[in-house]
């Protein structure tokens, strides 16, 4: 959580001076996962953090420097905070006092989720905006690309990058399948926010130069420069950027979300593009399942700049790592891949690594997956 703390400290340093007149809640307004569900987010390459703000007042009512997440188990992240805690800026107010929770993993994937707080019984229990689980209470919400995270689809010279940005998805307690609607009969939805959320748009595309190897600060401030470029109807845009002069810096491209006419207070989804030490494209969301004498693999990419292809590596406790088959060529733009390996070829290995091979000959491994 150290990186998250640093990021949130920066967020708070920005937010606090502008918020001295806004009192925190007295004495307690919990916002937490209280009913057994969680955010399913990959923490294998860094911590997951979150930030929350009142939708109608993002800069004056927000979670400031407060660390609002905790890890329950591998890949299970919970919101666990109280709007009365230290580091919080302001107290949600109004009818309803609707808030947005922005979750981000270290790769810029995440979740946008909004709670009204309108039900006195449920309060800001986060499960109110989770999809209802007919067999339980609430299904987990996964981190994904629908938080406004750009996808690199190509380059235009050395100082521009072509991206595609999908319309953001906001989970709300007004969604027809949400716990708030299904279980509580709509007590959480007094503002028809599902319609507002459906109209959410990309507020702006921003670029920022920040240190490589660390999750960037995502508060929407002077560190991020708003691009004049607006995505076309298909979500495509060509974003110019300045290559960082310092070898330890990288360029990041991120977006904000505008909801109900108000642009949010943070960069939601982001990617790291080529810079001094830009991170190579790594296989994401790797899955493996054994079936009918074969292991079926799937993974995806969100950035294939500089990527030549992939190699499959079998990992065995006794035999170490063994390459399987030949290089799987990269498609050149974000793509979802599948592959199959015969169990017999694995020679007892019980896990596989998807290894990215870059055009300069270097490699980077995704986390091993078991099957």
């Amino acid at each position, binding site marked *: 959580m150290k990186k998250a703390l640093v990021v949130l400290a920066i967020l708070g340093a920005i937010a606090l001076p502008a918020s001295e007149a806004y009192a925190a809640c007295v*004495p*307690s307004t*919990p916002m*937490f996962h*209280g*009913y057994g569900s969680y955010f399913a987010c990959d923490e294998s390459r860094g911590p997951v953090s979150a930030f929350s703000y009142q939708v109608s007042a993002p800069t004056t009512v927000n979670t400031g420097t407060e660390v609002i997440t905790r890890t329950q188990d591998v890949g299970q992240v919970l919101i666990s905070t*109280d709007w009365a805690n*230290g580091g919080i800026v302001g107290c949600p107010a109004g009818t309803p006092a609707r808030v947005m929770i922005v979750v981000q993993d270290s790769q810029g994937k995440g979740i946008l989720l909004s709670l009204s707080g309108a039900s*006195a019984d449920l309060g800001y229990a986060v499960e109110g905006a989770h999809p209802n689980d007919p067999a339980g209470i609430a299904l987990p919400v996964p981190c994904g690309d629908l938080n406004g995270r750009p996808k690199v689809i190509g380059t235009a010279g050395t100082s521009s990058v072509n991206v595609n940005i999908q319309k953001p998805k906001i989970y709300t307690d007004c969604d027809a399948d949400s716990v708030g609607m299904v279980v509580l009969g709509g007590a959480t939805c007094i503002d028809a926010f599902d319609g507002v959320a459906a109209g959410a748009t990309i507020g702006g595309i921003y670029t920022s130069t920040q240190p490589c190897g660390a999750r960037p600060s995502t508060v929407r401030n002077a560190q991020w420069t708003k691009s004049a470029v607006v995505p076309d109807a298909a979500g495509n845009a060509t974003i110019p950027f300045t290559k960082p002069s310092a070898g330890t810096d990288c360029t990041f491209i991120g977006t904000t979300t505008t909801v109900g006419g108000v642009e949010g207070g943070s960069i939601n989804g982001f990617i790291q593009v080529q810079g001094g030490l830009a991170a190579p494209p790594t296989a994401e969301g790797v899955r493996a399942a054994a079936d009918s004498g074969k292991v079926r693999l799937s993974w995806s990419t969100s950035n294939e700049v500089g990527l030549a292809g992939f190699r499959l590596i079998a990992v065995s406790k006794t035999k170490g790592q063994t390459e399987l088959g030949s290089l799987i060529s990269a498609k050149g733009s974000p793509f979802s891949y599948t592959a199959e390996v015969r169990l017999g070829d694995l020679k007892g290995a019980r896990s596989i690594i998807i290894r990215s091979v870059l055009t300069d000959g270097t490699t980077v491994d995704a986390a091993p997956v078991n099957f």
Partner: protein
Amino acid sequence: MRIKSMRPTVAVVIAAVIIVAAGGAAVASNMGFKMNKPLVLVGTGQTGNNWTAIPFHNPYGTFNQFCTQTGLKTTLPATSITVRNYRADTDSFKTCTCGFTCNTDPYFNQALVPGKMMQIRAVAGTPTSIIIVGSHNSGQSLTITEGIPFWYSVPYHSTAVTTDQLCTQIGLTSSGIPKASITRLNPGPPAAFQTTTCGNPATAFNLVLGEGLQITEANPASPPGIRVINFTPAHY
């Protein structure tokens, strides 16, 4: 449960009558007791947040066991319990839900801390009164850190009748400005906070049986540093 003989003075009996009348009904069995604690159900704002004192000796074990033994609501939407600086001064507010995270969150799935109160947020469907049982631990010392709000479980046999008496017993002796403060949350409806500063009888109020209080010792600039106050609650 510890059993002791008791011979209260007339003044103490009167005091006990006052706080019993104000807060509910308690049945004393020497030093062990059973108390009918009324709960206000949720409404707007803080209404339905019941600041609840827990006996220093009690049979509850963990938070979830407290939920189940007292019959709090354990289905969605469940009764929630909030604590403040419960296990450490830096903990701030933490909340669990009966039947859910009160059982699974490691912070809550461990022994209750003697002397710390809890806020029971009684959602619709929660009983409007619960039976709390236990006894006092006369040897239990508590520690209040300057500037850190302490959610105090007032002993059910406290000899302090008013907040001013409680200030004196604890040793909240800060002078000048700021001074120590004691806050009560009337769960309503409508909910209302009632706060007094120690040494200011004009704003003092009577303790209510079964209710917890927030006590904050002031942290004046002089002398420098942060003082801690150790005290053992007086009781009869």
